[in-house]
C-alpha cells in the first residue's frame, strides 16, 4: 500500500466517522439534555401546580389522601374600607379526611382562584371576616390532628377585581399531588 492509498483510506474513514457522528448527534443531544435536565425537570414538576384536574360541580375528588368537595363560592359585596372595584370572595370546602398524615400529604397546601385568562389569586390577609369556630384554613387544618373520617370545613378568603367574579374558579394544590391540582367547576359550567 502506497502512502497515497493510505491517505485516501484515512480520508474515507474520516468521512465515515463524520457521517456516523452526525447521526449520533441526533441521539446524543436529546440524551444529554435529558440526563442533565432530569433533576431540574423533576423539581419543576413537584414544586408547581401545572396540570388541572377538573371536578364537576357538586362532586368530590380524592386528592392528597382525602376527599375534597367545593361547598360554596360567593362574593361578600357591600363591605366598606376596601379599594374601589374590588370584592372579597369566600371559597368553602368540605374535606373528608382519608389518610390522616396531613403534615406530609398536604405540605405546601395552596388554595387559589383562577380566572378565564389563567390569572391566579392567593388568599388575602387584607380582609378579615367573622367565621364560625369550626372553620379552618388549609394550613391550619394540617396541624388540627384530624383523624380518618373527620369532615373538615375549610374556608379561604380572597380579594379580586369585581370584573372577574363571573369567571373565577377555585383550585387546590398540595405537595403530594403536584404537578396536578384540582380545579372545581361551578354549577353553570
Amino acid at each position, binding site marked *: 500500500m502506497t502512502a497515497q492509498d493510505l491517505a485516501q483510506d484515512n480520508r474515507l474513514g474520516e468521512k465515515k466517522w463524520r457521517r456516523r457522528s452526525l447521526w449520533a448527534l441526533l441521539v446524543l443531544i436529546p440524551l444529554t439534555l435529558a440526563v442533565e435536565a432530569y433533576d431540574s425537570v423533576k423539581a419543576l414538576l413537584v414544586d408547581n401546580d401545572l396540570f388541572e384536574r377538573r371536578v364537576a360541580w357538586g362532586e368530590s375528588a380524592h386528592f392528597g389522601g382525602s376527599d375534597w368537595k367545593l361547598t360554596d363560592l360567593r362574593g361578600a359585596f357591600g363591605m366598606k374600607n376596601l379599594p374601589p372595584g*374590588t370584592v372579597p370572595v369566600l371559597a368553602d370546602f368540605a374535606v373528608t379526611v382519608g389518610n390522616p398524615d396531613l403534615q406530609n400529604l398536604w405540605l405546601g397546601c395552596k388554595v387559589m382562584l383562577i380566572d378565564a385568562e389563567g*390569572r391566579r389569586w392567593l388568599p388575602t390577609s387584607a380582609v378579615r371576616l367573622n367565621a364560625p369556630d369550626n372553620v379552618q384554613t388549609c394550613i391550619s387544618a394540617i396541624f388540627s390532628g384530624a383523624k380518618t373520617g373527620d369532615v373538615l370545613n375549610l374556608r379561604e378568603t380572597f380579594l379580586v*377585581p369585581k370584573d372577574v367574579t363571573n369567571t373565577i374558579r377555585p383550585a387546590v394544590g398540595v405537595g403530594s399531588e403536584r404537578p396536578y391540582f384540582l380545579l372545581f367547576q361551578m354549577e353553570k359550567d
Partner: protein
Amino acid sequence: MRRLANLVLLLVAVALCYGLQMSKPHYADLIGPIPVRGKVGDVVVGRSFEVRVEKVQFARKLRADRYGETKVLTTGGVWALVTVEFAARDASTVVSTASWRGPTRLTYDHTERLSFINNGFLPVTVDPGLQKKARLVFEVRPEEVGNATVLISSKLLAALDSQAEISIGPVAASSDGMPAGTVDTLDLTQPVDGLPK
C-alpha cells in the same frame, strides 16, 4: 527595531487581556436579575409584577406611628421616599426588596427602621388586576440622590427574574447640599392608599 515592535505587541496583548478579564461576566452576572428599565411615571412591566413610580420626596425626618405612639426618625443623610403603585401580572405575588443605586453605583438597601409598620411598606402582597400603593423608604447620602436608580424585585437574589430599574433623573441640590425640595418632616402616619386602616 524588531524587539521594540514585539514589546509594543506584548503591551497591546496585555492591555487586551486586562480588558477581557475585567469585562468578562462572572457567575453572579450570568444568573443575576434581568433588568427592565423605565423612568418616573412609566409603568414598568416585569415578569411577575408591574410598578409605576408616582413621586419621589426627600425629607430630613420621618414621622411614623409605632403601636399608637408617634415616633420621629432622624438621619445623618437624607430620607428618600418613593411612592409606587404595584400590580401583579399572572398570579398573586410578593414584592419584597428594593434598593437605591446612586450615580456612583453605591447601592443602599431599603431601610429596616420602619419594619414595625406592616401595611404600605415592603414586603407588599400584590394581586392581579388590583393596584396597590406602597412607599419605599431609603436612607441615603445627599450626593447619591441625583441620577439615581430605584431597583425593585420580588425577592433578594432574584436569579434570572426581572428587576425593575427606574431612573429618578437629575435632582437639583440646594445650597446646603440637600436635594432641592427637601422637607423637614414627612408624615407616614396617613395610609398611602387613602383608605382607613
